């Protein structure tokens, strides 16, 4: 079971969890990195810290870190070694690289891979951000299905608020959650399955449109699993339905929000089904 929603620290996270940690105080972020990676070691995962000029001293104080670094249970990577092509990620190549690293960790006897990455330099320009959002979606889908977990750090003193909101919106967990989030969910046969949580109104329409663009096109419609969706307005629902239609199929929205069923009833939209979840 993956965590989703708001987090206040980086403990109690499982093998598939994916957290957005935005911060204006580097010291606090590094506290989160240490607690997150220490827990990973305790869970038998291979852990990795990634940042520009990543410094091993950052991890000092993590129990058993010396031995872990020596044995390969813990790794330090500089950002430029990890992400290729001049600090703009190639989304698919980057997912393949982490998939390979996850498989190697398993082959080496670990229970999975856990990465804490300071990713700010990768999202500084609109073009970088666009490809990184696509990458976050793809890697999130990988994480939902494989033993790979990540804590992604973003420095709010160097990024504007809309960029941070966009980044928070594609992670299942965030310390400062966006009003809504759209991320991967465990798959269903032939259809894209995404998970939607939070509240979706006009403050999120533009972002929803963008995030839906990041999802692979078709075929077979869209299943939106939304156990933690508390509100959706008519345009939000129509955006989801439109995305499903462009994928050549219908929309299934699984939700507890009673308003969603009312919307479908009154809007009279074909190809949309609301499945209440208990």
């Amino acid at each position, binding site marked *: 079971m993956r965590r989703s929603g708001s987090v206040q620290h980086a403990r109690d996270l499982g093998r598939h969890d994916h957290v957005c940690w935005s911060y204006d105080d580097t010291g606090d972020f590094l506290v989160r990195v240490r607690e997150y990676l220490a827990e990973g070691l305790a869970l038998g995962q291979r852990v990795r810290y990634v940042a520009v000029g990543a410094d091993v001293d950052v991890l000092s104080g993590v129990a058993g870190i010396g031995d872990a670094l020596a044995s390969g249970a813990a790794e330090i990577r500089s950002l430029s070694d990890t992400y290729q092509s001049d600090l703009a990620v190639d989304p698919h190549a980057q997912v393949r690289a982490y998939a390979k690293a996850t498989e190697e960790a398993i082959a080496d006897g670990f229970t999975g891979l856990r990465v804490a990455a300071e990713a700010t330099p990768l999202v500084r320009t609109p073009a970088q951000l666009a490809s990184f959002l696509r990458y976050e979606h793809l890697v999130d889908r990988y994480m939902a299905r494989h033993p790979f977990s990540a804590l992604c750090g973003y420095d709010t003193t160097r990024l504007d608020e809309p960029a941070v909101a966009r980044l928070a919106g594609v992670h299942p967990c965030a310390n400062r959650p966006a009003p809504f989030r759209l991320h991967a969910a465990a798959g269903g046969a032939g259809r894209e399955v995404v998970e939607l949580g939070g509240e979706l*109104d006009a403050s999120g329409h533009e972002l929803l449109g963008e995030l839906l663009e990041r999802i692979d096109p078709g075929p077979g419609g869209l299943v939106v699993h939304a156990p933690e969706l508390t*509100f959706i307005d008519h345009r939000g629902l129509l955006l989801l339905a439109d995305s499903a239609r462009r994928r050549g199929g219908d929309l299934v929205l699984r939700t507890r929000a009673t308003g969603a069923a009312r919307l479908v009833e009154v*809007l009279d939209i074909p190809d949309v089904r609301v499945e209440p979840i208990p």
Partner: protein
Amino acid sequence: MNPFTHPALFYRTDREYLSALVPFAEEGLDAGQPVAMAVPGARLDLVRSGLGTLARHVTLLDMAVEGRNPGRIIARVLRRFADRHRDRHVRIVGEPIWAGRSEVEYPACAQHEALINLAFDGRDVTILCPYDLSTLSPVAVADALVTHPVVWEGTSSYPSSDYDVPGLLSRYNEPLPEPPADAVFEVSGTGDLGEARKFAAERADGVGRERVADVELIVTELATNSLRHSGGSCRVGVWRADGHLVCDVRDGGRLSDPLAGRRPPEPGQLSGRGLLMVNDLADLVRLHSGPTGTTVRALLRLA
């Protein structure tokens, strides 16, 4: 010549009622025209028995339910039926005004009658609107002459010299009194919509738990419309009055389309359904628009 006809039927007794409605249905069915009748509750039983075996060929609807909010009758009753049969002349009986309509509801009913003329202009449709002269107020009867170009009474049919749609629309475009000061939440941008929703939901007790979601939708959709169309901020008011929960949203813009919220959506249409939805969800919608701004007020009956 405009194929659309919109007569008022003035009647005083059940006998007069049936002696107009039954032939209206009969002639239509004989000519292969689809016929629907939307009349309030008790009248429905009368019509059904009057039609006898013809009843099963006529679409019968309870106007007190379908048209509880007069703002949804054009889209959800009249056009829903007429649009299904665009290849033929369509006959509809629509009785939206009866003695039980309250003073708060009445202006919306009269506006609805006037707007039918705009909504169906040029359409190959007849909409016959019965008025019970034995129970309706003199104002309602006088207004029927303003909203209908022609009147049927007994065996005669005459044009109405009072017919004046713009005049009626402007007369009932009444300013709505300000909300109580402690019932108002200011919305200055889409980032405030979540708080506005919370504000509304906290004041929504009394409408029944299952309708709190309706209140959240209504307030969000109205405030979203205001922000989009007025280009500025809006004020959301939510309070209880006269057996209703009132959701009142005001902005500084002007609503220029008299049929806003009354057209069925086109397939694939991604927006512009907000007001239509509010008409669907609310028991009554009142509207005022003028040079100083627009107010949309949705009312939900308290449970």
